[in-house]
């Protein structure tokens, strides 16, 4: 009974804590709105920005708020091909969020398995894995991702691989340190006394208790992944031209920045910033709530 009741009260507690903090609630609402906008971008966008039949070259490089020849208003202006910036941003958001979330989930799974193995096995396995983690974390993620992409080449799959590669070490380290703590707790001894196998103890007992800190790291890492993807795309090493993420939109707008056409890179950047700020604030709040040291 208690096993079923506990998670319910925990999640309602979590919800209540969001309602209590106004900033966290605002961030959560903003984040939900962004995710919904990204998911439903084909439905809510004024036009399909990559359907060439819907574009009119006469509408190119229009400032925000201009009316087109056929009476539509471009709220955020248009790019050099007459593409509505608002639509392009909504589609770009979808790609940026998608790449960020997918790479984080893969890296999380990988880091979880490796970290658990290191923490539970101990000995030379642990030492070897942690040396690799330390070595990787001593280099900035942007450098590692750049080098990987320079070797692998361009493509959506390549950028996901690069993002997974730079992230897994964070999760491995987080999981390992909580696995080390959990391993020494009494419930693990009890499970050992009940003659449960090591796999069952690892996945049914230790793993669920390692998850809260991991969730916190993962939320913040999604923001990192999105920012890193945008940076790499801006440098021309990330997403291919067929999958225009926010970073790529900003890079395209850069060419027109010096002639004063700011909207092509300004608004995609605002969308990127709003996404990252919302994720960071929600992540900060989750950390405060889930941190056992701060719980009374």
């Amino acid at each position: 009974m208690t096993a079923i009741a506990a998670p319910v009260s925990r999640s309602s507690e979590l919800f209540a804590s969001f309602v209590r903090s106004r900033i966290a609630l605002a961030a959560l609402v903003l984040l939900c709105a962004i995710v919904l906008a990204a998911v439903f971008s084909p439905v809510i966008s004024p036009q399909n920005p990559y359907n060439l039949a819907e574009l009119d070259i006469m509408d190119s490089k229009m400032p925000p708020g201009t009316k087109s020849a056929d009476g539509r208003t471009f709220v955020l202006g248009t790019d050099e091909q007459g593409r509505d910036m608002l639509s392009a941003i909504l589609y770009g958001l979808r790609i940026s969020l998608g790449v960020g979330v997918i790479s984080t989930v893969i890296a999380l799974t990988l880091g979880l398995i490796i970290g658990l193995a290191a923490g539970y096995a101990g000995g030379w396995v642990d030492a070897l894995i942690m040396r690799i983690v330390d070595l990787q974390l001593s280099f900035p993620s942007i450098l590692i991702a750049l080098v990987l992409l320079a070797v692998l080449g361009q493509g959506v799959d390549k950028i996901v691989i690069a993002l997974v590669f730079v992230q897994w070490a964070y999760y491995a380290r987080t999981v390992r340190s909580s696995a080390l703590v959990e391993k020494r707790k009494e419930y693990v001894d009890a499970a050992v006394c009940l003659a449960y196998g090591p796999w069952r103890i690892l996945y049914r007992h230790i793993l669920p208790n390692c998850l809260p800190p991991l969730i916190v790291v993962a939320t913040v890492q999604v923001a990192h992944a999105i920012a890193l993807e945008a940076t790499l795309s801006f440098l021309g090493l990330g997403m291919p031209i067929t999958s225009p993420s926010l970073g790529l939109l900003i890079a395209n707008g850069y060419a027109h920045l010096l002639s004063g056409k700011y909207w092509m890179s300004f608004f995609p950047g605002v969308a990127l910033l709003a996404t990252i700020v919302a994720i960071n604030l929600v992540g900060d709040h989750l950390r405060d709530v889930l941190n056992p040291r701060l719980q009374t």
Partner: protein
Amino acid sequence: MILYVVRRLAQSALVLFVMSALVFAGVYAIGNPVDILINPQADQAEIERATAALGLDQPLPLQYWNFLAGAFAGELGRSFASNVSALDLILQRMPATVELALTAMVIAILLGLPLGLWAGLKPDTAAAKTIMAGSILGFSLPTFWVGLMLIMVFSVWLGWLPPTGRGETVPLFGIEVSFLTWDGLRHLFMPALNLALFKLALLIRLTRAGTREAMVQDYVRFARAKGVSETRIVRVHVLKNILIPIVTVIGLEFGSVIAFAIVTETIFAWPGMGKLLIDSINVLDRPVIVAYLLVIVVLFVMINLVVDLLYTALDPRVRLQAART
């Protein structure tokens, strides 16, 4: 102490060795090294000649040995694009990057320490809250986008600062620097500020957290009881204690500033080695990429070593611990 230094040096040498093996494996073993190191327009006879000349018909361990020997002699191949030694190309661009990174660090420290101290000493004031909100924003802002916005505001709208390039340089001890001329300073300001932003946010948070922790310590209470003025408590007692972790972070972050300079240099067309790397990746000039990687690995290992040794020198507790083990 000497034992500690020796052991730390050995450790650095080991990391260097491992990283050189990784770079070797990454560039030479994966994919055909002939494609990587020889001009793609070469014909069959030329490729065979080059394979033999590069020693690629030899067993892999021997190749690695040759690669290492070459690296020690400063021979890392010639750039495809400009046909000069790749290492020379990197070293020639290095001063610009180092100047940019150092200026960014100075900006971050000069602004970050006082702001962080202020936020830590008076945490409930509106000013402190504004500073902290600003630092969260500094963490979240994508660096490259901020760079673009700086160009938009200061170059396009206001017309105060030049958007790209390094400006006029003058030699200082044989190295060309920008910060001694007015034109150079004008070029340096925006990229340095852009690069400093993230570190500034980090330093504010670190200093604030350290200050808040130090202010409730017994030595502060004792100094107060003794009648020491509040300014002296902050300047002498608090600052001294929070500086140790901050110095470490500043040291360690210097490496990441050099790495992030890749982005800033690309935006502002700053002629450093980061821009060289991006240009080389775009034209697949692989010898230059390899040379950049090796240079940056050496730089990182050296920074880590210096920070560790500085840490030991600054904090007697670490020194004692190291001596005991």
